[in-house]
């Protein structure tokens, strides 16, 4: 081995050893990201002699990472519309007043496509975090949110997300993650409360089957469905697991048929959900009651025809809920899409409302101040009144929708329902 090679090896060893240390020197040299959030306020007496004049940016930049392509594209399109409509509406109303600059500033949405890939979500969020965004807005689907929230926490930048029901993410101790959306316990509870609330005893689908994808959210919601089923007087007669992206569901469908499943509960991605119900149609079997969380959120579910008819889903919102602000948003949606606002559009719209309100109350674009203002939110939005719990979730009634005749009917809660539950749906 030559001297030069030896020198290179020694340098490598030295670097590896330095890198494996506890990194205190590193913290000193690269802590600028954290420092910028804490040094916004002038320190000491200097503030009394000359008040620093903060130069206003041309806009308030919001970083949004949304699946425009890939498995979650149908849901991502709804999220994108919700963000865009809300930004348009707020800017048309004069923007967001920021006391620090003494002016109102327009919102600017820096929206990126993560192609439904959680690994792209993290790398895009890293890139956005290196810029001047005030907050992150999330995409669609729990895997993408699960990947993104840790990045937000590391960057100490507020993160708001809907279309994610995973509860365990709120049990990590994160400070910057807020999600005004029904979580798995809400989904599981409302499923059986609705059944018992709308169907008389003797007509209920007591034999429950679960198709569970092998993901963290799949495990979480399936376990809650099992426990809620038992406590509400139902029997889980089938619990089948499958890997996301599977293409042949014939086996588990036939097992469900053999087990005489009357209520089939599942939480597939849109492509998986379409495959399951298409194959159920081909096999000529459909239970009297079907709940398809997530996959049936997308409008193209109607393309399944009779196989998808009568399926229920939980998307957190429906325009018939009648909260202030829904009407103009709904009109905008009809103008662009030719139909009332899709369920996820409302939740996404509300996130921008919450963020704009928090920035105004914070009076600054400082991440920590905006985060504190979001945590203290107490306002009316298009999805209803919002206050956050300590863990970033909200107390919310989970509305349940049903795909009927090519449209979406709100069936639960009963007092807001636009139609009676179509049951049996087979």
């Amino acid at each position, binding site marked *: 081995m030559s001297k030069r*090679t030896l020198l290179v090896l020694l340098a490598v060893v030295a670097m*590896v050893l330095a890198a494996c240390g506890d*990194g205190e020197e590193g*913290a000193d040299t690269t802590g600028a990201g954290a420092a910028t959030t804490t040094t916004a306020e002038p320190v000491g007496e200097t503030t009394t002699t000359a008040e620093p004049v903060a130069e206003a940016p041309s806009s308030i930049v919001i970083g949004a990472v949304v699946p425009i392509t890939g498995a979650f594209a149908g849901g991502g399109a709804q999220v994108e519309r919700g963000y865009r409509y809300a930004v348009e509406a707020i800017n048309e109303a004069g923007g967001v007043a920021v006391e620090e600059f003494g002016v109102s500033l327009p919102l600017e949405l820096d929206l990126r496509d993560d192609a439904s890939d959680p*690994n792209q979500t993290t790398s895009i969020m890293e890139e956005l975090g290196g810029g001047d965004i005030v907050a992150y807005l999330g995409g669609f689907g729990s895997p993408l949110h699960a*990947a993104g929230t840790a990045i937000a926490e590391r960057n*100490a930048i507020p993160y708001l997300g809907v279309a994610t029901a995973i509860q365990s993410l709120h049990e990590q*101790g994160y400070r910057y993650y807020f999600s005004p959306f029904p979580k798995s316990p809400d989904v599981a509870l409302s499923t059986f409360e609705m059944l018992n609330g709308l169907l008389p005893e003797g007509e209920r689908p007591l034999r429950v089957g679960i198709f569970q994808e092998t993901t963290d959210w799949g495990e979480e919601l399936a376990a809650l469905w099992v426990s809620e089923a038992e406590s509400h007087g139902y029997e889980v007669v089938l619990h089948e697991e499958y890997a996301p992206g599977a293409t042949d569901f014939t086996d588990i469908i036939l097992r469900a048929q053999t087990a005489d499943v009357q209520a089939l509960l599942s939480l597939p991605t849109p492509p998986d959900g379409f495959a399951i119900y298409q194959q159920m149609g081909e096999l000529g079997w459909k239970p009297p009651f079907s709940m398809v969380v997530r996959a049936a959120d997308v409008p193209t579910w109607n393309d399944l025809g009779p196989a998808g008819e009568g399926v229920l889903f939980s998307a957190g919102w429906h325009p018939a809920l009648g909260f202030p602000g829904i009407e103009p948003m709904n009109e905008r949606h009809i103008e662009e899409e030719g139909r009332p606002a899709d369920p996820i559009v409302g939740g996404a719209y509300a996130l921008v409302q919450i963020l704009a309100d928090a920035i105004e109350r914070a009076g600054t674009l400082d991440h920590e101040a905006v985060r504190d203002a979001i945590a203290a939110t107490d306002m009316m939005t298009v999805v209803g009144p919002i206050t956050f719990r300590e863990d970033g979730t909200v107390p919310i009634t989970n509305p349940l929708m049903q795909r009927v005749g090519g449209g979406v009917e709100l069936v639960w809660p009963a007092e807001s329902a636009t139609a009676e539950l179509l049951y049996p749906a087979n």
Partner: protein
Amino acid sequence: MWLSILGVAVALGVVTDDQRIMTIAIQTYILAALASSWNILGGFAGQISLGHAAFFGLGALVTREMWLGGQPFPLSTLAAMVVTAVVAAIVGVPMLRFRDAYFSIGTLALGVAVFLTIGNVRPGISSLPVDALREYEFTGPYFLALGVMAFTVPVSMWLKQGKLGLGMMAVRDDEEVAGASGVSPLRHKLMAFVISAALAALAGSVFAYFSISYYPSFPFSVVWTFEAILVVFIGGIGTTVGPLIGSAFFIVGRYALASNTEEFQVVLFGLLFIIVVLLLPGGLVEGWQRIFGGSASDVVTRAMETKTGETKGKELV
């Protein structure tokens, strides 16, 4: 020259705290290390493995489990390399009896099977604990990734100039002739397989240390295999510095295209790749040669060889 590149990279890590630059640099170093490891098997020994991600993923999995479980990171890395090497030795004996396309298909099947299995067995996301997230800095992962990438270069040089590497290349060029000359094809292919897997595990270990949040199946994705192969071909297969140049070209090019061309970046990058391969079958290293001349195929190797007055091991595939 190599020391100059290393010096610039070290200086970059000291002077910048730009998150984007650090992220791009770390990704480049990890991919370069992975590509270098594949190059030992594919470039030196001529075995086109399409299941290399399995070893990268195994390295990441063992490291992450042990490290987040409370073990020191260096110990976790060492364990990951040992476990991966043992697995590679066990898998390699039957796998390397396949030849050419059959070996490639066999390794592809292995990689996909492992990817799907891990996805089913470990479905939950792996995120750093909250306390670690709040203390996270890029400096540690940066120098670790740089160190690991730098480590693969002298290992490749040592292999390429030594008896073992020459044996691998002899097997690559003609197994029958090599065998008749007393060079055991299976032994040399197996050594390449095991060393390559252990270095891939080392790269995976850095990935596990650097990544804040990912699904455990992700490092097992076939994407890692194909990116490593792309990088090797872009840089120059069978050369020691090719994977490094190819990796920098690939990652920086991808970021640049993604920023400026949005959804067309995949198509544009594909076209760019085809052009490079068509015009420069020896990769960018060959481009360097055409522009700057010289007889050596690898600028770094050339520098080393000039020092020793030897010319062995210089070739492009």
